[in-house]
């Protein structure tokens, strides 16, 4: 391979890296466009649904006036007047009060249809939320928001569906539903980055070869860094698009209002396009004019309130769940919120700017991530590493081929969650905002020495260690003892015994746990019945630490010894009998033979089983959680169950993640050390 | 059927070269045995021919095709493994027919070939058995059946007899020789047992440390070992080797070592060069008891009577020696014995290079 050729080949890396960075920005821009489009559509759907609800209120208020039939007129006009609206309806009780399909007006819901039933259930739930919000606001007049969602947005086939409650002075009068078309992808190609990347690559291929290696790498690094910065700075933000979405939604609704003859009476008509053409100030002026109008209280809630906001992704605002929503910290009064699938959406005027800044920063972070990847590729490539890796991949393609399906699965479903979990350990959550918190969680966990507190880490560690050691000790000694008993060829029924003794292993362990919990019941449990029969006094098993701990221990011992028994049986059977014969000839007695032959020869099988068993027991969640449930007072919880409680009961996910990272490190250390000492898994690594 | 040609073939594992620049021409139908101590590269060479190891450098031809990059499947070779490698989950019939089935041969043809092979190897009764239920010799036969049935261009044997007891080994050895005579297929056979090598081979390739030491017909190797390694490896018991110095005594070139001194025979004189540090080699069977004018006197510390002869083990001034004596010898353990060499049968090697005088370093088969 001549120097020239290798030089040429080396030149490939910068173009590759530059194109990866550009591709990264392309992906970011695209995903941003998708998110933008979704947000846009969600807002518009919410706005329109509110508008429909509001019109319905109007009609309810003027039932006796000439305005009757307004709702239907409005609803019918929507699909035509508002781009993207496919269907609109107002439900009152079980009847369609209005429907974009005029044939359905005043028809009953078809209760046998699943879709209609879902609509009915959702409407009922939102209605209940209206009442709950009214209660909450009555109880706490200072509350600046509705804690229960009154608007719901869920994705449906090809679009979004918004459901809004029509209320008149806090009183429910119906539900409006709008179905819109697919969210538009508002994708802007990051031209600048692409052009710079291509230009840079071309230039590099032409000129790069003239530079000696070291300066070339330096220039390459600088060029890529510049590309990254340029990309981050020029990434199209979505703030403007949000404004557009807001204007669109508002204009569309206003147009429909106009069409329905509602607006004419109170405000000058607005052509949607004209409205969209207005700049912000003009729109605000116009809004102010409408504000003067008698309809404003509704418009305020229905339109303006919904127009500015932010999307915060949280675990899940449970569908079908009336879970109270807390607004993010710093959200000013007057915010409105609703739940959408997978998201809670909070609206508020003032919070908007802050939210957009955060989002833009996030996007830049992505860009920088791609920049780092690009730089790594350049460096690895220039230094020949990548080529070596590539060659290894080709040389060993058989092996990698066999391994890759499992590895892909493991990476996506095990490693990424693990890494994500570890990262979460460095965060804290206030309300639904996740913030970087450095080592705070770890410091809090590790520097608290109040051992009297049952949730103290060191107390938990002690309990866990005791739990693990006692369990593994009992499993191994019982298992080994039984294996030796059963390994007697003269024992006729040993097959039957073996089958019966592994029954506990076969039964799902959560069932076992619940059964034993029942057996330890103070009044009805079989254990107390037995104690009484023996003349003892029945015990409240879960009232104090030691009895509660023993219930866990007994259950887990019942559950765990068969595994060790089987492992020991297997190992015993593989010990050649001539060894015993030799020992017999040498005059060893039974104990000596066990001690000097059986035990040492069992070790290769037993040690890995003990290590695995210890790890399993250390993390044995089901038994603790289901049998003692931590009683009394969380004292019998082990680390893993406590971590679970921190995450899901005390709602401190970051803290829990730090907790489990510590658990992980303990187990890792344990395994590495035992490995070093015993070489237990050495065979497995050969 | 085909010839096998190795041209400058080498094999490296990382920095470790296990086979170095092997040149070897195996004629069509020839039976070649690779022999050498363990770790000498003979098995690796065989496995390269089989396609189980990549060839690091050089060219391997089977027939007229260069097969370096072909999979074993395409090389048209069959192999018998030391462990037999019978598929434990298949019957003998399935074991033998596996390769044919993989090649999608028509069923009746397979059946015919399997039964033929079974017939030849006396396996007909055992076709439905699984390998577990068979003796070592029977398994060995199945392994051979599996190779024969394919009617390959080349047979490869990797120490096929080393797991058998002595008696069976002799029997199977004869069977392999018969099979080769009958089928006439080019065969490469690896063993560390020189008796197998001598009895089976048309030609023997002696290897050590990855290098071919000598290639030749069995008797050629016995009579004219190319270097001290071959001299010591071929022949049983091994050739006695003594360090000697070349001197001219009274105009006659003489080699002198500890406790011995003999004139260089006429036939070796033309090969004498500047080198004075030599090794003298003499096979035990070319030593005889001499009352008068022995070349050397050995002290005997062990006698191995074999019936037809007695092997006397001892030393000549600290240098170990073995001599093959007449069965009725009067020599006793602990006693001295005067020994004469058959001077027509002695060998002289260059002590520095190990080469027999007059020999160049080996560069592959002619």
């Amino acid at each position, binding site marked *: 391979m001549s120097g020239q050729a290798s030089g040429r080949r080396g030149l490939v890396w910068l173009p590759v890296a530059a194109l990866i960075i550009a591709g990264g920005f392309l992906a970011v821009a695209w995903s941003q466009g998708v998110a933008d489009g979704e947000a846009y559509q969600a807002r518009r759907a919410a706005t329109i649904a509110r508008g429909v609800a509001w019109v319905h209120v109007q009609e309810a208020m003027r039932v006796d006036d000439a305005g009757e039939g307004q709702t239907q007129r409005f609803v019918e006009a929507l699909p035509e007047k508002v781009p993207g609206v496919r269907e609109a309806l107002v439900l009152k009780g079980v009847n369609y009060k209005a429907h974009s399909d005029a044939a359905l007006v005043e028809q009953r819901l078809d209760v046998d249809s699943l879709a209609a039933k879902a609509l009915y259930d959702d409407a009922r739930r939102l209605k209940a939320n209206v009442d709950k919000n009214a209660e909450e606001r009555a109880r706490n007049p200072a509350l600046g928001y509705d804690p229960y969602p009154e608007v719901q947005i869920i994705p449906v086939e090809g679009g979004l569906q918004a459901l809004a409650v029509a209320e008149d002075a806090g009183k429910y009068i119906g539900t409006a539903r709008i179905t819109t078309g697919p969210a538009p992808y508002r994708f802007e190609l990051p031209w600048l980055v692409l052009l710079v990347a291509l230009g840079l690559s071309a230039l590099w291929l032409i000129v790069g070869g003239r530079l000696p290696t070291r300066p070339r790498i330096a220039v390459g690094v600088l060029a890529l860094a510049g590309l990254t910065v340029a990309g981050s700075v020029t990434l199209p933000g979505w703030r403007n698009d949000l404004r557009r979405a807001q204007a669109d939604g508002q204009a569309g609704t206003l147009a429909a209002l106009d069409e329905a003859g509602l607006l004419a009476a109170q405000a000058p008509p607005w052509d949607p396009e004209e409205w969209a053409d207005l700049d912000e100030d003009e729109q605000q002026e116009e809004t102010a004019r409408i504000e003067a109008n008698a309809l404003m209280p509704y418009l305020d809630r229905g339109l303006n309130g919904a127009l500015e906001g932010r999307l915060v992704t949280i675990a899940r605002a449970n569908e079908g769940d009336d879970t109270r929503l807390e607004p993010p910290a710093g959200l000013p009064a007057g915010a409105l919120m609703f739940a959408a699938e997978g998201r809670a959406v909070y609206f508020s005027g003032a919070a908007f700017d802050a939210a957009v800044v955060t989002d833009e920063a996030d996007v830049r972070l992505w860009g920088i991530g791609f920049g780092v990847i690009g730089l790594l590729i350049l460096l690895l490539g220039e230094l020949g590493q990548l080529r070596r890796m590539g060659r290894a991949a080709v040389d060993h393609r058989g092996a990698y081929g066999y391994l890759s399906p499992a590895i892909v699965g493991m990476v996506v479903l095990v490693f990424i969650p693990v890494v994500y979990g570890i990262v979460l350990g460095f965060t804290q959550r206030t309300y639904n905002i996740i913030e970087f918190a450095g080592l705070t969680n770890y410091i809090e966990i590790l520097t608290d020495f109040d051992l009297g507190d049952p949730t103290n880490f060191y107390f938990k560690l002690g309990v866990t260690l005791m739990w693990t050691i006692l369990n593994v000790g009992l499993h191994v000694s019982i298992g080994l003892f039984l294996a030796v008993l059963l390994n007697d060829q003269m024992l006729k029924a040993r097959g039957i015994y073996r089958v019966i003794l592994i029954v506990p292993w076969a039964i799902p362990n959560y069932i076992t746990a619940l059964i034993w919990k029942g057996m330890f019941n103070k009044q009805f449990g079989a254990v107390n019945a037995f104690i009484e029969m023996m003349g003892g006094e029945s015990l409240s098993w879960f009232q104090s630490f030691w009895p509660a701990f023993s219930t866990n221990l007994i259950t887990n011992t019942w559950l765990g010894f068969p595994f060790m028994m089987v*492992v020991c049986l297997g190992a015993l059977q593989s010990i050649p009998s001539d060894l015993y014969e030799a020992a017999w000839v040498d005059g060893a007695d039974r104990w000596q033979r066990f001690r000097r032959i059986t035990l040492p020869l069992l070790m290769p099988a037993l040690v890995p089983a003990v290590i695995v068993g210890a790890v399993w027991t250390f993390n044995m969640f089901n038994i603790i959680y289901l049998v003692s449930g931590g009683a009394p007072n969380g004292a019998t919880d082990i680390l893993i169950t406590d971590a679970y409680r921190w995450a899901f009961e005390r709602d401190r996910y970051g803290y829990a993640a730090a907790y489990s990272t510590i658990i992980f490190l303990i187990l890792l250390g344990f395994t590495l050390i035992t490995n070093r000492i015993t070489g237990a898994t050495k065979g497995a690594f*050969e | 059927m085909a010839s096998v040609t190795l041209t400058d073939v080498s094999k490296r594992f990382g920095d470790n070269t296990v086979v170095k620049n092997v040149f070897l021409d195996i004629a069509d139908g020839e039976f070649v045995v690779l022999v050498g101590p363990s770790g000498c590269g003979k098995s690796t060479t065989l496995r390269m021919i089989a396609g189980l190891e990549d060839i690091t450098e050089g060219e391997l031809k089977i027939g007229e095709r260069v097969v370096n990059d072909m999979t074993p499947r395409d090389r048209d070779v069959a192999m018998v493994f030391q462990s037999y490698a019978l598929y434990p*989950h298949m019957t003998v019939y399935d074991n033998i027919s596996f390769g044919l089935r993989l090649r999608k041969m028509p069923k009746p043809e397979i059946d015919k070939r399997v039964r033929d092979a079974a017939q030849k190897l006396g396996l007909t009764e055992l076709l439905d058995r699984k390998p577990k239920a068979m003796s070592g010799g029977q398994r060995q036969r199945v392994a051979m059946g599996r190779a024969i049935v394919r009617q390959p261009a080349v047979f490869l044997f990797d120490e096929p007899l080393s797991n058998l007891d002595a008696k069976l080994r002799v029997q199977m050895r004869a069977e392999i020789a018969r099979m080769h005579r009958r089928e006439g297929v080019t065969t490469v056979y690896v063993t560390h047992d020189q008796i197998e090598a001598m009895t089976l081979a048309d030609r023997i390739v002696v290897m050590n440390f990855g290098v071919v030491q000598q290639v030749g017909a069995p008797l050629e190797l016995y009579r004219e070992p190319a270097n001290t390694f071959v001299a010591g490896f071929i022949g049983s018991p091994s050739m006695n080797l003594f360090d000697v110095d070349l001197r001219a005594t009274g105009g006659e070139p003489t080699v002198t070592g500890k406790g011995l001194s003999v004139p260089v025979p006429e036939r070796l004189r033309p090969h004498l060069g500047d080198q004075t540090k030599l090794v003298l080699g003499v096979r035990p069977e070319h030593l005889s008891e001499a009352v008068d004018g022995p070349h050397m006197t050995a002290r005997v510390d062990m006698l191995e009577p074999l019936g037809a002869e007695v092997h006397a083990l001892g030393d000549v001034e600290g240098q170990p020696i073995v001599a093959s004596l007449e069965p009725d010898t009067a020599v006793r353990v602990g006693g001295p014995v005067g020994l004469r060499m058959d001077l027509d049968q002695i060998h002289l090697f260059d002590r520095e290079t190990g080469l027999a005088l007059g020999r160049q370093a080996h560069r592959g088969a002619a």
Partner: protein
Amino acid sequence: MSGHTSSTQQSTAGERLLKNLFLVALCVMVLYPVVWVFKMAFTPSQGFSMSLNPIPENPSLANFEYLLTELPFFTWLFNSVVISLATTLVGVFLACTSAYALSRFRFPGRTTAMLSFLVTQMFPGVLMMIPLYLIMDWLGLLDHLLGLILVYSTTAIPFCVWMLKGYFDTIPIDLEEAAMMDGASTATIFWKVILPLSLPAVAVTALFSFMTAWNEFILAAVFMNRADNYTLPVGLQRLVGQFSTDWGYFAAGAILVSIPVVALFFALQKNLVGGLTAGGVKG
């Protein structure tokens, strides 16, 4: 030493009597909770009124009837069967191929791969729930049977790989080379030589994959929102949650849930010894 082989002890009749007594007592202890569940299941009352007597006083099938008729039991059963079988197939397949690669090939990253398989066993699974949930959401697999199948398969993989690799290691490489000489491709070698020879270990692997999927309820409860996507354990757990004192239903459900897995377990238990210990004990 007498003719019979491998017995650690040469037991006398008296010893055997003692042993038998001890083992019988132990079996009673082991079986008692199981019998107890049967009693609850066949006792119509939902209470917990237990005495030591394990025989139901007036047996009835009312609990089972309720489960099978009032609850979407068969839907749950169907889900569980589909998920468990698919998990077994996918998990065993992936574990076989990876274990084979790890056992037979030497390649860069091999030790890392094996270490990471081992290490994942140590991360507390409960805490992976939220990240997993987000990933499932991202993949659009929430409330899909496929989502659970993938998650279960991957969680089962490390243990299965560990076990299978140990077993594959005991299969001589000669066999593969012989097959190669016979003209088999890598895939043929794998399917026709390695797999048939590893059946005991594969059976155990399959059993564990199946049990993982059949018994798991935490992830299933989180990922499955619609009642017609519940698996049996989730349905059963909801039963306990919903009517916290309905022990009769629970017991009946527990029996129905346990029967298939226990049956499978016993069908394959002969392989447990060989399959589990092959890696640890060479020879």
